[in-house]
């Protein structure tokens, strides 16, 4: 009477049966290396601690201190400005370079390699190299990159453009090469000008690349740390009347780092709270941007 339940398919297929074995290690590593520290980080943001094994729970005090810290607010706006300028410049320039390098210029493979190369150098090294370059030029005018906030800002923009354009260029080139020939041909037959082809045909078709490139450059801009540390380290400071100082070229990540090792035994928790806020901010901005540009993507 009773029907024998069929054996679950998952147990029949050996690959599926052993799936956990393949998933397991990475999942375990992910949990140990990311999920657990992340949860612990959130817990520590509500503690006062020096070493994490001796943490004392203090509730939301750290968050209050973090958002009332003027240096944190300053670094937030500075970072936001930096992110906007760098996203625009990096993407426009990377797309331009990619566009010309897909037009069949001689030696374009060599150019691609050369443009990509800066991306292989580490941030700290780049920061120190560029600080020498900038100071080499600025010393002729009796000044240095450490002397003016605007020098530090544009210096960092130049550095980041130099480093990131090549990487974004590779993504754009892949996107441009994936635009179907027949659409381009149809546009040509219909008498579209080069400009019309670019804005009406090519750009809508490379929207997925634009999505990923803006996402990468935006989050990179917000998370920037090593280059900031090595190039200016936050200098110059504005010395305020009460003796406190605002580091005018300090970005969010560096501010968190300086807070963690900066002031007192209570400051590690405050830095941790800043780091949690920082994560929420970067995640939110990233997701909003993804949603916004995704909507503009077209189906081929």
């Amino acid at each position: 009477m009773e029907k024998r339940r069929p054996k679950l398919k998952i147990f029949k297929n050996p690959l599926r049966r052993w799936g956990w074995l393949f998933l397991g290690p990475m999942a375990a590593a992910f949990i140990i290396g990311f999920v657990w520290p992340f949860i612990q980080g959130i817990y520590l943001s509500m503690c006062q601690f020096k070493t994490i094994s001796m943490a004392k729970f203090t509730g939301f005090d750290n968050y209050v201190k973090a958002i009332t810290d003027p240096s944190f607010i300053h670094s937030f706006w500075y970072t936001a400005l930096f992110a906007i300028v760098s996203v625009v410049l990096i993407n426009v320039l990377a797309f331009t370079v990619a566009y010309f390098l897909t037009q069949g210029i001689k030696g374009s493979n060599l150019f691609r390699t050369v443009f990509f190369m800066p991306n292989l150098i580490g941030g700290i090294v780049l920061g120190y190299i560029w600080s020498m370059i900038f100071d080499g030029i600025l010393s002729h005018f009796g000044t240095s990159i450490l002397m003016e906030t605007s020098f530090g800002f544009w210096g960092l923009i130049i550095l980041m453009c130099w480093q990131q354009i090549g990487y974004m260029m590779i993504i754009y080139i892949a996107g441009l090469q994936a635009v179907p020939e027949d659409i381009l041909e149809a546009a040509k037959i219909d008498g579209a000008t080069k400009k019309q082809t670019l804005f009406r045909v090519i750009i809508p078709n490379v929207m997925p690349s634009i999505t990923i490139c803006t996402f990468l450059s935006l989050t990179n801009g917000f998370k920037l740390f090593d280059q900031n540390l090595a190039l200016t380290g936050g200098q110059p400071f504005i010395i305020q009347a009460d003796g406190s100082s605002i580091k005018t070229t300090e970005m969010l990540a560096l501010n968190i780092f300086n807070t963690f090792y900066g002031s007192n035994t209570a400051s590690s928790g405050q830095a941790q709270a800043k780091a949690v806020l920082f994560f929420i901010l970067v995640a939110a901005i990233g997701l909003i941007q993804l949603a916004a540009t995704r909507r503009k993507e077209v189906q081929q």
Partner: protein
Amino acid sequence: MKSTIKKIAAFGLAALMTASALASCGGSGDKSSEASKTDSTASTASKLGDGSKGKVYWLNFKPEIDETLQALAKDYTKQTGVEVKVTTAASGTYSQTLTSEMDKSNPPTLFVIGNQQGVKEWGDYALDLTNTDIAKELNTDAYNLTDDNGKLVSIGYCYECYGIIANPDLIEKAGHKMDEIKNFEGLKAVAEDIHKNADKLGFDAFSSSDMDDSSSWRFTGHLANLEYFYEEKEAGGWKECPATLTGKYMENYKNLYDLCINNSLTDPKDLATGGHDAENEFKTGKAAFFVNGSWEYAAVSEDVKNATMIPYYCGVEGEEKAGLNCGTENCWAVNANVSGDDQQATIDFMVWLVSDKNASAKMVEQLGIMPYKNAAESTNGFLNDAARYTEEGCYVMDWATNYQPNVDEYRAALVSALNAYNADQSDANWDAVKTAFVDGWATQYKAANAQ
């Protein structure tokens, strides 16, 4: 048969993946150490364990003595069988390294608490050293650090001195004598004369005063001490970090600072970036004065045989009786959270370092002078200068700099203000330096003591 092989292969691959994926997390994984959970106040000197069963782990902060320490550690292990591990974290990253090492299951048993801020941050992790064997070896308690409750948190294992290193040969070549330099007026006259005739002489007065990280501490830490010291002296000595400064001796700081930057090889405008090798300028005879400390003796005396050190003359009344700035940031603290056996082993090792004839000779060779009864004699010319000043009845300028609250942040702000001043020596820019120096102290004091 085939499927068995497949299974084995799959299992092997998975194991390999786990291993490689987890390898990157190694070292930081072991966080739940029993040792660090023990009560930090439980152990006292009388309850220490058996040293021969323990082991020693010294987190050293002076890269220049690392080689010596490694050799000494090996000797000690050979002689006693006690395991000694020495790891060096450069002073710039010491606090980061200490923070992570302290969380491990085998934390350092011996580490450095060098100033009052260190006492605030790490005092809870330090064993009270009162009446321990190592404390009994000391010949002075001038270099010890105690917390607010009088707990002996750390004890000095060597001390150093700083001032202005001078090359008497060059000064004589310029037509002057060392005897002329007995106060600021004397120093100023000699330095300005040398600078004026620099082209003719082929050398200048002061070596470069770079403001990059490798050099700025000579001015934001050491030179600044003259301001703190005279304030401290007037107040009858500081027992703890004062909440505010008066800034009364800022003019004197300015006197000497201006003399350094304006009578030098390098245009003050070029100091922000750094990259001038001040030590080399002095060694190669391009400059007659070099603001630095006793640790430079070995390097400098090779080339400048007669190098000597003079005090910070800055125009304070009665400074003819000033001596060198003597003090230390080299203070040993023993971890309160490791087993009694380890603590005893660590203290035994410390006693050996300061009393064994060979070991202490090697330490002194590197470190200068050790304030212990049975330690070897010093061979450092600058420290001997310091002792000579003291014998002549001059006052020692102690390291009031060690009280600098939130030291890294405080000095960073001062560097930034001095950069602006170097580029344009206006009154407004000096006011900013004053603000960073005096008001910055109060601000950082508050930040450091906030709960």
